[in-house]
């Protein structure tokens, strides 16, 4: 989300989901909502039923791609080239929104110069998308009244993930497709509370609510509220902590509800790092790859066992309510308080609502939110005061950058960190299927779901299957420079020739043993969406 934050000001979706049925033109990019976000897909399907035009940018032939007016079947990792190419077409044809560019943006000249390098010839070569399709996609997007870009992890989970998001912002800004209902950029978040977790501060460089640590006023506010002097030194990102652990320079980690030993890319390195720690505490609801490395495992409470709030991908803060007692008697918030108290910093809250009150008092974008209000209404941040109705559409007049202007970012195509070669000739894309979720620890415990989707399947195109002399149900080994797994094959035209697909739901076939160590230098997001593999019978 750092990409959108740089270009527009805030790393969040600009509109509400409820506005989706009214859009005229949907540009779906690197997202497969029918599998990964089924309820969002219902909104989008309604838009399609209402006659919206559809452009899909995805190397896989997804449900949406099949129904698209234009399917941009780009090579994995060529997002920036494609978007630059589209912006170039729009500028060449004069389809841009000049008034918007003049009044609400900066950095246009640099962008203009940069995208000139991305003529159709070049872009076709880099992306594999035909010129005609690029022009048609640019035409449909720029000519629509209410055009929305919906993107997913196919955009961010690249080593250029942040820049990919900026390139998307460029496209929207050139056409002025921001700041209006049903017109904007929606990022679909992978996990239930990605938005809330980013909003509320477990970040090494900023306080809750995106308040920079360099902001003295903010720091003083927190120091006063928390009664301590806060370190001004920027902390370590999770990946950096693990790297330092490998070097023997980092000693103890408290992990709350995460499973880096299965879900991080290049997990061999992660496991080594965890083993190098002197003390590892993991709190989770199930045993995971990560708990195996722990010194103390604490039982977590599931979402049904505690009160709290989640913030969804459209910035909507909603209640989580306790339906049953925590299985081990304590919820995570209570555990954190007890450890803090034992370590000499007393924390005592009677109920999570008191934590929310503290959040509201320290975090302006959550300033008006309280449990009492959430009983009656549903609020989208920014909601700065107790009587503010929340915000459905961002940037209707100003962007939240200094000066209120959005910024064009001139970007270069870099490609993926690892590209196929003669030894590892296939590109592996990873993602989800509808029935399962992430490391599968929850969905694999539903017997019904396991009956439907019991195991990992490697999706491969018929052309490639023929070349490899493999068929449906054959067991193959998939290996990359980092590891090797064995899976069954599913031949499908969802995969294009040269690309194969795996999920990451099954510990028996851990696709993240294969994925590459490349990551986005800005956010540290790993490049899950593209690495080179070979397939053997």
């Amino acid at each position, binding site marked *: 989300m750092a990409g959108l934050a740089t270009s527009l000001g805030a790393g969040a979706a600009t509109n509400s989901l409820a506005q989706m049925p009214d859009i005229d033109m949907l540009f779906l990019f690197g997202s497969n909502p029918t599998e990964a976000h089924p309820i969002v897909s219902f909104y989008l399907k309604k838009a399609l039923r209402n006659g919206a035009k559809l452009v899909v940018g995805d190397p896989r032939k997804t449900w949406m791609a099949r129904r698209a007016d234009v399917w941009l079947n780009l090579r994995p990792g060529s997002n920036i080239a494609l978007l630059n190419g589209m912006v170039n077409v729009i500028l060449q044809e004069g389809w841009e929104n000049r008034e918007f560019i003049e009044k609400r943006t900066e950095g246009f000249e640099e962008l203009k110069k940069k995208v000139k390098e991305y003529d159709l010839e070049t872009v076709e070569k880099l992306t594999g998308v035909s010129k005609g399709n690029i022009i048609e996609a640019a035409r449909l997007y720029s000519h629509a009244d209410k055009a929305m870009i919906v993107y997913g992890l196919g955009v961010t989970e690249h080593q250029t993930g942040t820049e990919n998001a900026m390139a998307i912002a460029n496209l929207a800004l050139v056409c002025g497709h921001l700041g209006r209902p049903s017109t904007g950029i929606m990022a679909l978040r992978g996990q239930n*509370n990605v938005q809330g977790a980013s909003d509320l501060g477990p970040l090494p460089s900023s306080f809750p609510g995106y308040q920079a640590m360099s902001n003295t006023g903010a720091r003083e506010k927190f120091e006063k509220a928390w009664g301590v002097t806060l370190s001004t030194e920027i902390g370590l990102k999770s990946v950096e902590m693990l790297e330092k652990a490998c070097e023997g320079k980092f000693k103890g*980690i408290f992990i709350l509800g995460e499973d880096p030993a299965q879900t991080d890319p290049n997990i061999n390195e992660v496991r080594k790092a965890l083993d190098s720690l002197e003390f590892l505490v993991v709190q989770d609801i199930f045993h995971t790859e990560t708990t195996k490395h722990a010194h103390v495992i604490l039982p977590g409470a599931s979402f049904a066992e505690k009160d709290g709030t989640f913030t969804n991908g459209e910035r909507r803060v909603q209640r989580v309510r306790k339906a049953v007692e925590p299985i081990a008697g304590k919820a995570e918030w209570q555990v954190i308080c007890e450890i803090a108290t034992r370590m000499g910093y007393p924390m005592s809250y009677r109920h999570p609502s008191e934590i*929310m009150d503290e959040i509201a008092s320290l975090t302006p974008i959550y300033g008006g939110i309280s449990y009492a209000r959430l009983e009656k209404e549903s609020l989208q941040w920014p909601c700065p005061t107790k009587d503010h109705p929340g915000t459905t559409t961002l940037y209707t007049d100003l962007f939240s950058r200094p000066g209120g202007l959005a910024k064009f970012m001139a970007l270069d195509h870099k490609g993926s960190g690892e590209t196929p070669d003669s030894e590892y000739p296939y590109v592996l894309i990873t993602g989800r299927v509808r029935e399962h979720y992430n490391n599968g620890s929850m969905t694999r415990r539903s017997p019904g779901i396991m009956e*439907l989707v019991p195991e990992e399947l490697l999706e491969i195109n018929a052309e490639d299957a023929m070349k490899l002399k493999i068929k449906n149900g054959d067991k193959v080994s998939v290996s990359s420079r980092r590891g090797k797994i064995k899976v069954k094959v599913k031949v499908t035209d969802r995969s294009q020739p040269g690309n194969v697909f795996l999920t990451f739901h099954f510990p028996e076939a851990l696709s993240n043993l294969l994925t590459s160590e490349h990551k986005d230098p800005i956010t540290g997001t790993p490049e899950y969406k593209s690495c080179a593999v070979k397939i053997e019978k």
Partner: protein
Amino acid sequence: MSDHKVKIKINGTEICCNRGDTILKAARMAGVRIPTLCHDDRLEPYGGCRLCSVEVKGVPRLLPACTTPVARKMEVITESETITRIRKRIVSLMLSNHPNDCMRCEKAGECALQDLAYQYGVDGSEYGGERWDLPIRQANPFIVYDPNKCVTCGRCIRICNEVVMAGTIDWVGRGFHTYPDTAFRKPRSLSNCEFCGQCVSTCPTGALIDKKGRGKGRVNELTRVKTTCGYCGTGCNFFLNVKDGKVVKVTSDYDAPVNHGNLCIKGRYGYEFIHSADRIKTPLIRRGDSFHEATWDEALDLIADKFTGLIKKYGNKSVGAFSSSRCTNEENFLIAKFARTVFRNNNVDNCARV
């Protein structure tokens, strides 16, 4: 009055409504209750059950309120002798082809047909005649379909085709023998069903029910707790149905701002992990290569001691914390606070980037 507004009269009272609204919508805004059965706000108007039939001045027939758009100067009557007679007729006709086995039906207590039968005081016994005797379909993990209880409102078909666009079920047969089913009446399987349970969520009777919740408790025994789904980032609300400290079923919250009662397979049927035998039930402390159960006090004391020791030995920059997008806002905030106030560093990160 703007171009988008029209004035109509409902039961003699003038109301102002939006052009393009249906009579049903206008009536609801005016607080006038009209019974419906085939209507679901998530779906396109249908007009099949005819329960919402109303009188419109100048029209010799009754018109369904759910499909008929308002028109300038329209005069609508929602209750009359004729209307009540027709509604009674419709409900009794429905019951004339229904097993009427409420005493052992999963839906009892929240069944629209049961409520209508009660309201209009009919049982359909005056007709005699043929009743369906169709096989119950349940060769799948989640959905039980008893077509004999179907009132052919078409809501399951429409939600499957209009909202989910999965196209799993449609009408089969003609006339009396029309009912919803899969193509060629095949069992539901992944090739034709997403198992989102949307059809179950919209079924007004006991024709479609959740297999997993069957026999786990009647509606009046269940406590419903409204909450937010813990899977993807869409933020769907639903009700956890709890009996004796156990979540036995997930049901739709039709007023949810994001999902309006819609759910996917994970949200509706992926709740069993809550009471899984694999859950970590007590704190565990490693001794050598194995873990041993411990009390909270033992575990928390150990954690506090160890971290305090590490900070003392290696400095406060040698420790850190990860939180996750799976945790609540409050927990994430606390972890951020914990690292800064207890570890006294900024080594705190979350997996939001992943």
